[in-house]
């Protein structure tokens, strides 16, 4: 392990460590990273630490070998390789596309939309016919240039996606400036300083906006070491934390946290937990704080804007709006703008604005579906279902009575002569597995009213009937 044995010195290449936050929008560029020395660690894999100069050499080497295209679909699973690929694309002035779903049809759709795109991955599990550039496992770091690259603020760094209502994902472009300002907002919120001994362990993928913010941008802009893996199972998270041996921040979700608390997973050296993707129950946050003796902070955000609010659930149910942002209501919907968010956009959750700087959350709007932090709409899912050959009519349905927070969706489908498993297989090619209907009921017809709407009461009664039929069969 690298130790910060001597006090950090301000080298010529250092990324202005004494600079006072917040940066303003007039900054024309931001450094790729804010680590104070080239010998400082930036990534840890199985206890082996890669230094900043090894990282920069790898990123520059890859950047020089990238295909001359505009868009790179970053599908790396290893977080350090994701970071190298992301940095290489930035240096080559290419835009990283971060798909919200890796199903084969979804990826083909993405390349149809961005014909000048290729895949950057650390594996070969890519649909045939897609241009692939492999990210190497290791680069002999011979490039010892001592400057930290500065990336123009206005350069589009990534495009992230939300599922649009027609079933076609909606792109959201993020400039390097907005990503850096988002990381600075996070640091400010949670009192995070520049500390080269801190390590980030993340249980969320880097391709998710929350993962991008907390597991890539925050370590880059805080001089931290990132853990290269993507551990999820309790034994893997315990191993990751144990092997890093430093002060560890855990970036996770309520579903994962519930598992680690339930198992009383040993996490020595933990200094903080950040949770997002769905509301964290206060009782769970309290158990985690008791178990590991660290504060549990929570972020409310979304793909369009990144972090919007934050709170410590054991202290308050009220969310504080991130500094620099403005929130207001128009009818039933809340809007937000300013700061790292930039232009105004409408939030998908029902929100009550309590004061200019505080708000409360009251669940998703009617059409919105959230399963395990992934978000789509019933309209989008229904559009995908209708595209499957042989499907005459069909609808997804979200049960209302379910007590299980991870409850899955139900689908009613009219498809004469086609089996439920065939439809499931077709859906699997197109949508995230979390949204696959469980169960999918084949029916003779759907009782649509004259304007084509389905009475919700019918759906609910029918779903109830099917479930009780199943229970009788089981007993």
């Amino acid at each position, binding site marked *: 392990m690298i130790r910060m044995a001597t006090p950090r010195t301000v080298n010529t290449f250092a990324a202005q460590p004494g600079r006072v936050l917040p940066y303003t929008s007039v900054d024309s560029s931001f450094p790729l990273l804010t680590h104070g020395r080239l010998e400082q660690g930036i990534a840890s894999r199985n206890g082996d630490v890669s230094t900043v100069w090894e990282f920069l050499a790898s990123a520059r080497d890859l950047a020089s070998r990238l295909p001359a295209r505009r868009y790179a679909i970053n599908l790396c699973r290893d977080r350090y390789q994701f970071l190298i690929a992301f940095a290489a694309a930035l240096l080559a002035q290419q835009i990283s596309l971060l798909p919200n779903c890796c199903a084969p049809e979804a990826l083909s759709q993405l390349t149809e939309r961005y014909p000048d795109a290729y895949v950057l991955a650390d594996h070969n599990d890519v649909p045939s016919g897609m241009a692939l550039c492999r990210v190497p496992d290791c680069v002999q770091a011979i490039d010892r240039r001592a400057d930290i690259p500065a990336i123009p603020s206005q350069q589009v760094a990534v495009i992230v996606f939300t599922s649009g209502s027609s079933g076609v994902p909606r792109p959201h472009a993020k400039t390097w400036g907005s990503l850096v300002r988002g990381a600075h907002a996070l640091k400010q919120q949670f009192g995070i300083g520049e500390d080269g001994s801190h390590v980030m362990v993340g249980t969320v993928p880097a391709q998710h906006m929350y993962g991008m913010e907390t597991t890539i941008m925050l370590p880059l802009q805080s001089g931290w070491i990132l853990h290269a893996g993507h551990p*999820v*199972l309790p034994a*893997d998270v315990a191993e990751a934390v144990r092997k890093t041996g430093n002060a560890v921040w855990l970036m996770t979700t309520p579903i994962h946290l519930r598992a680690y608390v339930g198992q009383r997973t040993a996490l020595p050296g933990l200094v903080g937990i950040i949770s997002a993707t769905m509301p964290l129950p206060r009782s769970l946050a309290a158990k985690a704080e008791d178990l590991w003796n660290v504060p549990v902070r929570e972020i409310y955000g979304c793909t369009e804007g990144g972090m919007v609010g934050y709170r410590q659930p054991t202290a308050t149910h009220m969310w504080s709006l991130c500094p620099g942002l403005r929130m207001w209501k128009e009818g039933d919907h809340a809007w937000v703008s300013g700061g790292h968010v930039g232009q105004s956009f409408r939030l998908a959750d029902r929100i009550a604005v309590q004061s200019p700087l505080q708000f409360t959350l009251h669940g998703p709007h009617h059409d919105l579906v959230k399963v395990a932090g992934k978000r789509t709409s019933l309209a989008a899912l229904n559009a995908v279902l209708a595209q499957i050959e042989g499907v005459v009519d069909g609808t997804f349905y979200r049960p209302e009575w379910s007590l299980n927070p*991870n409850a899955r969706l139900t689908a009613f489908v009219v498809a004469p002569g086609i089996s439920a498993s065939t439809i499931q297989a077709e859906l699997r090619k197109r949508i995230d*597995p*979390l949204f696959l209907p469980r169960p999918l009921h084949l029916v003779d017809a759907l009782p649509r009213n004259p304007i084509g709407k389905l009475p919700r009461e019918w759906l609910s009664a029918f779903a109830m009937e099917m479930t009780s039929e199943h229970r009788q069969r089981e007993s």
Partner: protein
Amino acid sequence: MSVQIEQEPTVEMISRTEIARLIVATLHLELTPQEVDPATPLFGDGLGLDSIDLLEIVLSISQKYGINLRAEDCAAFASLSVLTAYVNRHRTK
């Protein structure tokens, strides 16, 4: 000459149905344990389970049989048969 036979503690083998019941109950699947095919893959194209399901099953197996599965052990989820054999081999309770 007398032969000493060492008496091993009797450990009852866990049946496939028992593991199927654990999966169905953990994940609230709309299936009966008997409907889970012993040879079908549990994830991907087979039973269609996903990453959240994996976490839930790993927790249930840990609580009931004392096995702390890791990502590298996930070949154990190749099918119900393979998982049953794995649990019988590695259980600590």
